[in-house]
């Protein structure tokens, strides 16, 4: 831990330039809950740290009529505690509350979490269900990507060496929208989830399913959006049977993680049950949401 260079860039472009210059030897640091852990255990030995916390205006929660934008350096705790997020995006508030523990939530950031590409984390499933997109900056410009396209494998994202996630945007909810997130951990509350499932339902004026988005996280090498299962529900009147069928279909093609925390079989069974409950809860919330 002796000879590590440190940079505190004052702009995104400066940070991207440094990442490009130092290549594989450089690591961007956001909250540090992952990187410093890996450095403590000598798993990661970066030559240079690029401190993203010195860049101004990356830590924001901005509401507009059409969306909420979350800066990449916004902490999980800020999302959890934001009264407006709780009011307009209850699923995000509840999901953020389940992440790890208060100290880690004070330190860890949304952008850092997404950029890590870890399977067993909470934000991707909930964000996917809300149709969230990330804005990615590099020396060459910016691009926008749906969250479901970001993580490509275990601890792998489509980010290039000099690219940084700078914000995440979530479109505002249409009337009669309800969303819910459930996670399950086979050990203590603050441990990483063995599964995390999210559902966002939009009802039409006859309380049929107008649109549904599902997000499955922590169960496979990448977060999953089970589109075929979504198709089963679209346009239909919602019943317990339909919810059951949708939950079963959602897991049908998934290559479930099999590890020390849970077997693939157990994960699959728990995912189906949690998804049933989550869709039901999203439906109840959609029914009771304001129709203006």
């Amino acid at each position, binding site marked *: 831990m002796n*000879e590590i260079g440190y940079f505190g860039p004052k702009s995104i472009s400066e940070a991207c330039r440094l990442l490009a210059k130092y290549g594989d030897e450089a690591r961007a640091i956001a909250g540090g809950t992952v990187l410093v852990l890996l450095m403590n255990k000598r798993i990661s030995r970066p030559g240079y740290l690029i401190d993203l916390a010195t860049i101004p205006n990356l830590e924001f929660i901005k509401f507009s009529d059409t969306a909420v934008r979350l800066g990449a350096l916004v902490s999980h705790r800020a999302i959890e505690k934001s009264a407006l997020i709780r009011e307009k995006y209850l699923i995000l508030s509840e999901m953020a509350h389940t992440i790890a523990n208060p100290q880690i939530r004070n330190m860890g950031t949304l952008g850092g979490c997404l950029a890590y590409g870890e399977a067993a984390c909470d934000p991707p499933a909930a964000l996917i269900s809300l149709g969230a997109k990330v804005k990615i900056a590099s020396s060459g410009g910016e691009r926008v990507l749906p969250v479901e396209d970001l993580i490509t494998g275990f601890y792998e994202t489509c980010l290039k060496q000099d690219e940084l996630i700078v914000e995440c945007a979530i479109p505002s909810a249409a009337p009669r929208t309800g969303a819910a997130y459930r996670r399950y951990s086979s050990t203590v509350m603050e441990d990483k989830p063995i599964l995390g499932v999210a559902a966002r339902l939009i009802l039409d004026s006859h309380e049929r399913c107008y649109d549904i988005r599902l997000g499955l996280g922590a169960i496979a090498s990448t977060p999953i959006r089970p589109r075929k299962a979504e198709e089963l529900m679209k346009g239909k009147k919602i019943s317990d049977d339909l919810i059951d069928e949708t939950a079963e279909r959602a897991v049908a093609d998934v290559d479930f993680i099999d590890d020390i925390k849970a077997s693939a079989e157990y994960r699959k069974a728990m995912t189906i049950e949690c998804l049933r409950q989550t869709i039901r809860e999203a439906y109840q919330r959609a029914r009771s949401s304001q129709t203006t």
Partner: protein
Amino acid sequence: MKSSFTGLVQRLRQFSRSAAQDAPTLPPAHDAVTAEFARPITLTINGEVFRVNVATGRTLLDLLRYDLGLTGTKENCRMGSCGACTVLIDGRAIKSCLTLTIRLQGKHIQTVEGLINKDGSLDPLQQAFVQQAGFQCGYCTPGFLMMSKEILDTNPSPSEDEIREGLVGNICRCTGYGQIIEAVLAASRIQVVPEGKSLKDE
């Protein structure tokens, strides 16, 4: 029993005095073998300003314990799971084992040594932990105290569930947590009058 409690309180006061309170400047951090990678950082710890030279990889935990002699904060898992290293930065509870000192320019740190009042009287949390026997070996206790402080600072009358949720990031091997929860509940009921002295809420 009363005299052993008094003795315990006296020992708590003794250990709370910072070893570095009289040190005006500090030698360079001993692992900064390559001078170009050690940077001067100014930060405030328990109300006192420190100017330190730190290597990039120097964690706040190591700074506190090994460079400044503030051994109240404990080293344990080094992976952010156990909470023994919990301190407050600008009032927010964080894990100092996962915090790099070099990023803390201008920050205000509070450790367990900073809980005790200037007149030597115990903070309500410390009083309550003593009275409720909220510790056995005491190794996890500084972490629990600092996390509890954040809980009570943001939520002065928490429910038992809120306390339990607030403490999920701290692990105790000895007590089974029961007395810790009682202690935080009891602390929330101790009223503090403006002068900074504490009264028990009878």
